[in-house]
């Protein structure tokens, strides 16, 4: 295979500037709306910033210290929002991992119509939060909602606790379960059949092969799903905004609702920016912890496999995990490094 790399210079690949010309349109957007605001936001958070005013008073870290001071005006709302967001995340994430995985295991089997069923389960996800919010606001209506009519209950799903949380978690699971299931399904498809055959030869039953083949094989995909599901749950906004309006008595007001209300409705942007960075810091810690917890074992296992391979005088397939062939698309194993 002659896969010679032509350097940017010389030849007819164009000038050394060519790659930058290709990148320029995207980079302009990236700098303006991602890189610059990431820093600018920090700057804003150090001020008493109201964009309606002509000058912004510098406060130093006061917007941050206010968040830790129970006597400040922002304290109660912020931590109420953080607590609610934490509650929602802790309750919804397990459902959004276990149920999609079970569904993926069902759909992984070969049977006529599996594409059709996959499409059915994914359907809610293509609808926007505005649509599903309004739809469920009606279905969950305490007086004439279909949910009460079908269950034969008389529950105020959106205006009393714990039912408001049950509703929000339920709607979110219904809405996004198909998304995670599709990712799990792709991950299941990438587990080599030989691993299952080897397990079967060893006399492993369904449960044993699930625990010893499926789960370890899914680990990289699982890391990805855990991280994005936690991030998505912590970002919850529209469901609460539309279905419970943050109620009853602010008990379902999420952190993002608190931040946007403060920063974009009341224009106290400095304080709101500080809150958004503190929340982002929490999420970064959680994400890194997730990667670290799940990646550690992965690396250990890879090292073990490598050692075993070396003992066998391996590398027979010519594809060691370390090979840096640029033609090979990132596989699940490289997830940890690509991120």
């Amino acid at each position: 295979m002659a896969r010679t790399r032509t350097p940017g210079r010389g030849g007819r690949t164009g000038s050394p500037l060519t790659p930058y010309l290709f990148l320029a349109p995207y980079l302009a957007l990236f700098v303006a709306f991602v890189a610059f605001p990431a820093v600018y936001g920090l700057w804003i958070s150090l001020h008493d910033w109201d964009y309606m005013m002509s000058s912004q008073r510098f406060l130093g870290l006061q917007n941050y210290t206010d968040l830790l001071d129970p006597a400040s005006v922002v304290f109660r709302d912020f931590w109420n929002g953080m607590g609610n967001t934490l509650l929602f995340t802790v309750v919804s994430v397990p459902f959004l991992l276990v149920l999609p995985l079970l569904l993926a295991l069902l759909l992984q089997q070969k049977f006529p119509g599996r594409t059709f069923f996959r499409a059915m389960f994914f359907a809610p996800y293509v609808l926007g939060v505005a649509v599903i919010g309004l739809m469920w606001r009606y279905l969950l209506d305490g007086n004439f909602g279909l949910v009460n009519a079908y269950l034969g209950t008389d529950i105020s799903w959106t205006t009393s606790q714990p039912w408001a949380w049950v509703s929000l978690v339920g709607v979110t699971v219904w809405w996004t379960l198909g998304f995670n299931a599709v990712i799990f399904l792709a991950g299941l498809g990438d587990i080599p059949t030989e691993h299952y055959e080897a397990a079967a030869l060893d006399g492993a039953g369904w449960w044993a092969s699930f625990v010893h083949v499926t789960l370890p094989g899914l680990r990289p995909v699982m890391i990805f799903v855990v991280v994005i599901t936690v991030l998505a749950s912590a970002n919850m906004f529209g469901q609460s905004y539309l279905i419970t309006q943050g109620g009853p008595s602010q008990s379902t007001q999420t952190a993002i609702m608190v931040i946007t209300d403060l920063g974009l409705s009341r224009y106290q942007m400095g304080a709101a920016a500080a809150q958004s960075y503190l929340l982002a810091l929490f999420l970064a810690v959680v994400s890194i912890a997730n990667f670290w917890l799940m990646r550690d074992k992965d690396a250990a296992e890879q090292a073990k496999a490598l050692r075993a391979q070396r003992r066998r005088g391996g590398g027979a397939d010519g594809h060691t995990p370390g090979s840096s062939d640029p033609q090979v698309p990132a596989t699940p194993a490289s997830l940890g490094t690509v991120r």
Partner: protein
Amino acid sequence: MRRAARNPLLWVVLTLLSVVFVGPIAAMLLTSLKPTAEAQSADPGLLPGEITFRAYEVLFTSADNPVLRWFLNSMLAATAHALLVVLTASLAGYALARMDFPGKNLMFGVIISTMFVPGFIFLMPNFLTLDRLGWLDTLAAIVVPGAAGAFGVFFMRQFFLSLPKEFEESARIDGAGPFTTFFRIMLPNATPALVTLLVLSFLANWNDFIWPLYVLFNDARLTLPIGLSKLQGAYTIDYPVIMAGAVIASLPVLLLYVFVQRYVIDGVATSGVKG
């Protein structure tokens, strides 16, 4: 591949689940065709006893709620956004996949790492940027900032990595420059990836809620999701009208989904596995 399942229980379970997943969507559609009194009776059935298009008439003739205008705004914004993403992401993804230049790995690393940065930290600073650009309350506010997301670049780079090098080699022999090669040879060969990215970007923009909620103000400028949330306030006691609004917002994406379902699902699957 597993053996073909012969267990009828599997079908029963999957069919029941399908009802759970699609039933609410059907209920939304059916409710929009009911008279208000029927939808809001103590014991509403699923099927309308009497079919009426009154809810749609109310919506399309309401002066306060220009639903048709919202629909057009959303259509324009989502289309422009999707085209912008596909163009900028394929150019950048191609350079990152197939060209060598100093700083490439660092640049790719920085861009990709932002996929895990929560979007809400950009709300305040980007609002101020739009204010300075004079873009608040315009469609540009909906079209442009979201196109800076890293997913498209990542997605297109992965696809271009999978194409054989021979494409460029034969183009070079024919004397084609890098831009001719890209637009005449690489892009046409990337059609499946381009369609997937186009559809995913369209869906994301059509459904976007939090950003347009805060950067659009005038009734005539709103996108459909934001207009709908306003409807909820205006027709609190008329569910068929609100459901009709939700149906109007769902139809384009559901139709798109029916026709390009495979692209959507494959795109999502790829994001995880190759992520």
